[in-house]
Every structure is written in C-alpha cells, then in structure tokens.
C-alpha cells in the first residue's frame, strides 16, 4: 500500500492542477476572509469560528479529488494506472487516502493563513478574537473535514468518470440541492454529505442556525457512512468495468 500511496502523491505533485487549485483556494479563501473581517462586525466567538471554517477550501479539495480521479479517464491514464496496480480495490483506497492526505495539507496551510490574517485584522479593529486553544480546536475540525472531502471527491470521480459532470454535479448538489434541503427539511439536511455532516463536525451551520447541526461525534459517524457508501459504489463500478 505504501508504494501505491507514494505513487499517487507523486502524481499529485507532478502536474500543475494541484498547485493551481491550492493557489486558487488560498486566494479565494483569503479574499473572502479579508473582506469579511474588514467590513463586518464580529461580536461573538461564533462569528469568528465561521470565518475560520474554510468552506471554500473544502469545496476546492472536493473538486481536486473528483477532478483527479475523473481525470484518469479523461486522459486515459486509467489503463496504465491499473496495469501498474491491478488490484483495483487497493488502488481506490490508495487514491482516496492520498487525496485525503492532500486535503489535510492544503487545509492546514490555508486555515493557518486565515487564522493569522484574520486575527491580525480583527484585533486591529478591536473585534472579538479567539484564544489559541479555540484556534487549535477549529484547526483539527477543519483537517478532519478536509480529509473526508478529499476522499469523497475521489469516490465521486470514480462513479461519475467525467470531470465536467463531477464539477457541475458537485456545485449543484452543494449549493442548490443541499441549500434547498436546509430550507425545507433541516432535520434531513443536517445529514447531507457536503454541508450538513461536515457542518456538524466544524460546528458551524450552513445558514447560521446552530440548531440545524448534528453533534460532532454523530456528524463524524455520518461522514464515515457517506464515505463507506460511496466507496462501496465506486469499488463495485471500478471492479466490474471493462477498460477498452
């Protein structure tokens, strides 16, 4: 497994997609943070938590995983990948784990940047800031969610196999389907894979209503359920597929 994992991480590092996505994620996340912390008032710890939650980072990591896996079909590299690693189940695990690891690294870098820049701006404006224990708490929650989203992206890419469909599908699901669900049936929406369960772990609600959230432990279990379900579906499809 470690050789496969190393190879997948090497793949990530040897194209520009990874660097480009991290770059965009950092820029977008920082931009949103700087605008928010400069223009609006932060009166409670909850406000600050929400600013450091790294929603955009999560979305980028999810897209990175989906594009990475669907890209194997787009560039027809899946054949050479499977020839090198004929056990498709192990291959899928390695892919999912490598993107989970990439998610953790990206999230760590960006969250740290958000915290430093945000705290500097907020304290200069005499707004509420967080102590280091709270920052650490936010950090590990972000890392858990990022690992989850990296793996989830890979599994979505395995099932969908088209980069365009994966990207459009993820955006529609995250911003239209789940958003609507939160409006109509919040009790169901809090279990949703992209905003609901991750929101429970991060302890920041999609629409600012804390009562909509699952407890972090339950939310983590729900995320595990989503990953397992998509893994089972992705593995079944990948194993049964003829590569012609």
């Amino acid at each position, binding site marked *: 497994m470690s050789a496969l994992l190393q190879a997948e991480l*090497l793949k990530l590092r040897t194209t520009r997609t990874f660097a480009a996505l991290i770059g965009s994620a950092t820029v977008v996340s920082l931009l949103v943070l700087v605008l928010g912390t400069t223009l609006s008032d932060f009166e409670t710890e909850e406000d600050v938590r929400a600013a450091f939650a790294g929603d955009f980072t999560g979305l980028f990591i999810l897209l990175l995983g989906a594009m990475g896996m669907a890209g194997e079909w787009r560039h027809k590299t899946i*054949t*050479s990948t499977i*020839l*090198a690693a004929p056990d498709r189940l192990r291959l899928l695990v390695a892919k999912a784990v490598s993107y989970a690891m990439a998610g953790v690294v990206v999230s760590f870098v960006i969250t740290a940047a958000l915290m430093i820049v945000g705290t500097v701006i907020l304290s200069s404006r005499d707004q509420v800031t967080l102590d280091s224990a709270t920052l650490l708490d936010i950090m590990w929650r972000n890392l858990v969610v990022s690992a989850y989203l990296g793996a989830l992206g890979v599994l979505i890419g395995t099932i969908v196999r088209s980069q365009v469909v994966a990207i459009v599908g993820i955006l529609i699901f995250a911003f239209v389907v789940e958003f609507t669900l939160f409006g109509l049936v919040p009790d169901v929406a809090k279990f949703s894979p992209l905003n609901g369960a991750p929101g429970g772990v991060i302890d920041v609600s999609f629409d600012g209503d804390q009562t909509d959230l699952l407890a972090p432990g339950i939310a983590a279990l729900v995320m595990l359920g989503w990953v397992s379900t998509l893994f089972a579906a992705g593995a079944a499809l990948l194993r049964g597929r*003829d590569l012609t």
Partner: protein
Amino acid sequence: MRHHAPAMATVEIRELSKRFGKVDAVRHLSFDVQAGRVTGFLGPNGAGKSTTLRALLGLIRPTAGTATFDGKRYEELEHPSAAVGAVLEDASFHPGRSARNHLRVLATTGRHPASRVDEVLSAVGLGDAADRRVKGYSMGMKQRLGIAAALLGDPEVLLLDEPTNGLDPPGIAWMRGMVREQAAQGRAVLISSHLLAEVSQSVDDVVVIANGELRAQGTLDAVLGGDDAPETEVSSEDQDTLAAALTAAGATVQRDRDKLLVPGMTPAQVGAIAAKAQVTVLGLAPRARSLEQAFMALTAERRS
C-alpha cells in the same frame, strides 16, 4: 541484463471468449506464446487482437476461458510490472506531466529503482526530451514513452499492440531490433499487427485471427510460407516454342509480359522440358506466393 532460462509456454490463452453486447469480439481462442521467441499476432482490423491482449492484462473480463502467465492471471502476479510489460494501442499519458515524472510514478508503484527511469529513457531515445511535458510530444515520441514504461520493470513477457503506430522508418527498424534483442535474452514477445509486412521480418511464430477466431498458428514459414502448389517463372530465347512444349507436357501456361508462368511445375520440370525442346533458358525461378497473399487468404471472410 538478466538472461532468462528458457521456460515452457509463458503465456497461455485457453478457450478465450469475449462478447461486447451483441459483438463476439473473441471466440474460443487458444494459443501459446513461447519464451525466447517473437510471436506475431496478426489479423485484420476488428479481428479481436486488442481485446485478447486486454483480457490477458486483466483490463477486460473474459466472457469465458482463461489467459494466464505461467498459470497465473495478471491480477494474481506478485510483481506485475516485473513480469509483464505492455504497450497498448492508445498509450496515453497525462499531458501536463513530463516523461521522466510519468516513469517515476510507475517506478514508485512497481518498486523499481529510480535509476531504471534514466536507463529506459535512453534506451528508447527519449533522454533529451525527458523533462518536457508530454503535451508537446509527437506521436512517435509518445509511442517510445509507452515502450519505455513497458521496459521499466525488465519484464519477462512483452505484449505490444501495434507498437509501430506513429513510428518513422528508423523508429520501426529500431523497434524490430529491440524486439529481436528482447527475445534473444529469453523473453517472450507478443506483437500484434494488422500489417504482416511490418512484423514478418522480426517474428518467429505467428498466430493469425480473424473475426475473433483462430485461423492459423505456427512458425512464420509453416503458416504463411508453406506452399503446396509450385509455380515457376521462366524466360527463354524462344518463348513461343517453349510455351508449346510446356502445353504439350500438360501445363497451363500464362504469359506475363516477357515471362511465362507455369503453375503446377517446379523449375526442374520446366528446365527439363526446355532442354528437350532445345530452347535456351535465360531465367528460371520458383515463384513464391507472397506472404501477404497467404495472409489475405487466411483472414478472408468465410462464407458458409
């Protein structure tokens, strides 16, 4: 380079069948590929060559039958890239990755020493282009990169699906030499083509398929050279007299410009008749049915 002890049948295809929907791509196909020999896998477009190779590599699941390496399916091989190297038809690489990085990824997966990357890059003549992104490669360069990837694990079996696609004449000559060298070192080489002429100079054995079915297998000479009916080509100082003499001896003579074609007779028989008719012979030669003709005949549509 390691020398391999001559093994028995390295690659075994047994009763292999693959159906795609309504298409029987391969039907009850059985053949072997021997170590130390180059086997040409021949058949017209759509004959089922790529399907067979992909089934052998575990990329597609056979409808029936088996395809194994020393009795093991590809997925069961302990170290697949050290056992089998393959170049498939549409070898594809991430356009944004360099050749060197592509091979580094494969070397990492296959646990091959990093030094192999440079070895195979120079072996295929890509040393200078190794750090350029594959996006800018010509078709022939991509083909060479595919071959480098196949050679990375120094495998015992090489499977090449139309490997000369996109190669220039020097590239084709290089490919032939490489294939011969690999076989001479004891490896089993299976090389597919729909053009007999492309492989006839480098193969020992041939397997001919058409419509997913085996048409012939054996040594190149036995399958495509063997010609039961002799045909002789003769030119002489007096073609009319010779033609009359041959016809009198029971031959059907055809005229081909200044030559006479005599099907059914050997040069010795034609020479004897010419001598008896006192005609001076200028040229006398057996006419081999061309390999290409034999190949066409073997793979022609069968009407039942």
